[in-house]
Structures are given as structure tokens and as C-alpha cells.
């Protein structure tokens, strides 16, 4: 079973890396970029075949390690 965990900064948390990327996009002449927030994507393969169990394990992984919930949100998707 394959899954993806997406970790993003909570709104209101200053994201200097996103700002730098935003600036670089503007200097490259990419038009219409209003703002950029960066984050992380984890593609995970699981031995579980039960979707609910897989989601529970991924939630545990995100809470315990993948995300720092003081500053980050995460989203878990079982992709197939």
C-alpha cells in the first residue's frame, strides 16, 4: 500500500525559505506569483493492506516524527 504524507507550515508561521523562493521566481520573470509557502512530501510504502490501519500508522508517524505540530500541519493520503 502506498501513501503520501504532506507537511506544511501552519498559516501565520514565518517562512523565510518560501519568501526566498518567491523572490527567486519573481527575479526569473515568472509572472503572477503572489506568494510561496514551502513544505515537505513523504512517499511511504506500507506492508498493511487495511486502509484504516495504514492511516492510523501514518498519523502516528506524522505526530511522532514527520511533523512538528507546534509549527506544522500534515495531511495523510493513502494513494493505492
Amino acid at each position, binding site marked *: 500500500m502506498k501513501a503520501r504524507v504532506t507537511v506544511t507550515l501552519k498559516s501565520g*508561521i*514565518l517562512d523565510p*525559505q518560501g519568501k526566498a523562493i518567491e523572490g527567486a521566481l519573481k527575479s526569473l520573470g515568472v509572472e503572477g506569483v503572489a506568494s510561496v509557502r514551502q513544505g515537505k512530501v513523504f512517499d511511504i510504502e506500507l506492508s498493511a493492506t487495511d486502509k484504516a490501519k495504514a492511516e492510523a500508522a501514518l498519523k502516528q508517524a506524522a505526530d511522532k*516524527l*514527520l511533523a*512538528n505540530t*507546534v*509549527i506544522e500541519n500534515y495531511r495523510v493520503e493513502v494513494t493505492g
Partner: protein
Amino acid sequence: MKSAVLVFPGINRERDMARALTLISGRAPAMVWHAETALPAGTDLVVIPGGFSYGDYLRCGAIAARAPIMDAVRAHAENGGLVLAICNGFQIACEAGLLPGVLMRNAQLKFICKDVYLRVERSDTPFSRGYNAGQVIRVPVAHGEGNYIADADTIARLEAEGRVLYRYVSPDGALDPAWNHNGATNAIAGIINARGNVLGMMPHPENHVEAAMGCTDGRGLFAGLVEHLAQAA
């Protein structure tokens, strides 16, 4: 003072720390590998030193904070034992839940490696009794992620409880955004936990302890710890 310095893969300030502890306390610390599950019996002070544990993978300090030795460090802190967490150690302590908040990327996105000025906010703690309240000390920093943030309630609580021990200031001790090198909330350089036995700070007092280093302003922190433990004994 019986101290233990934790060693994680990618840490690089553990020898500086061991040298400073040996010099000031007269006793060499135990060097404790991250895969251990216990601290040496009778450890008074655990030091989490600076460096780049696990190459700063995932988030600074995130992987080290989950190392086997950290359960023993948490138990040590819960029993009232002292923990000094410097630089990457501060990041590890936050990730491990020993201290609140997070160290984010420096606001200016630059790795900062230079001397900074810190104001000692109070002198009635084990980690600051070697100084006078209001005293300004000069110590080096070397970090890319030292921009301390926490939610508004946590910041308000830290301030109300006097848990900000060290703040980035100008050489004459004034709060000034120009001297808050990494953009930290309220110019916070170092905080203690609610119980007052865990200190996390980004600057490196261990690198200003000998005349040959050009400055000895960092000695007070270690001398204060030695004095505190001698009195407690």
C-alpha cells in the same frame, strides 16, 4: 560536578564542551553515546552539545530527539537533574519536549557565525548565578536555525515567569532589532523550563572560557553551575 556530554552522529562541539567543563569544574565529563539507554550513575549535569546531528535531516534536532538516550535525559530532568542544551542541543531539547517552542531558519536566511552580545536577565538560577542581572556578555554563535518562535501563549508565559535568561542585545545592553541577529521572538537567546533545571540557548558559552580564545565571558555560566552543585551537596 559530575557531568555527561551526549554524543550524536554529526555533533561537532562535544570536545569544546568537554574541554570547558574539565577546565572549570576540574573533572572531565563522561561522553555518552546516543544509543546508550542510561546515564552514568550520579550525573549532576547533562549537556546536549552543538553541531549538526544527523545532518539536520528532517528538522534540526528532530532525529536526535528520538534517540534511545533521550528517555534517560527526560527522566533525569523529571528528577530535577540539570540539563544544559547548547545550539543544536537547544533544537534537540525543543524537539524532545524538554523545552517549548521551535528554532526556525534565521529570518535573514544566513548562517550566522560571529560574536554576539547577550543580556543576562536574572542571576537567581543555576544557569546564570555566575553573572549579575543585567550584565552583558559576549559569546559566539554559529547557526542557521536559531530564530526562536512559539505560540503567543507560550511566549507570554515564558516572559511572565521570567524564563527568558538570555537575550540578544547591543553591546550596551539595549534591545535593538539590529542586534537580534536571527530574528528570534523577543530577541530570545536562551530559556529555561518551568522547573528551572533545563536551559536551552543558541550561543556557545563554552567557546569563551580561556584567555587564548580572546574572551572569557562564557566562564560564568559553568562556574555558576559548579557553585550551585557545591552548595546543593
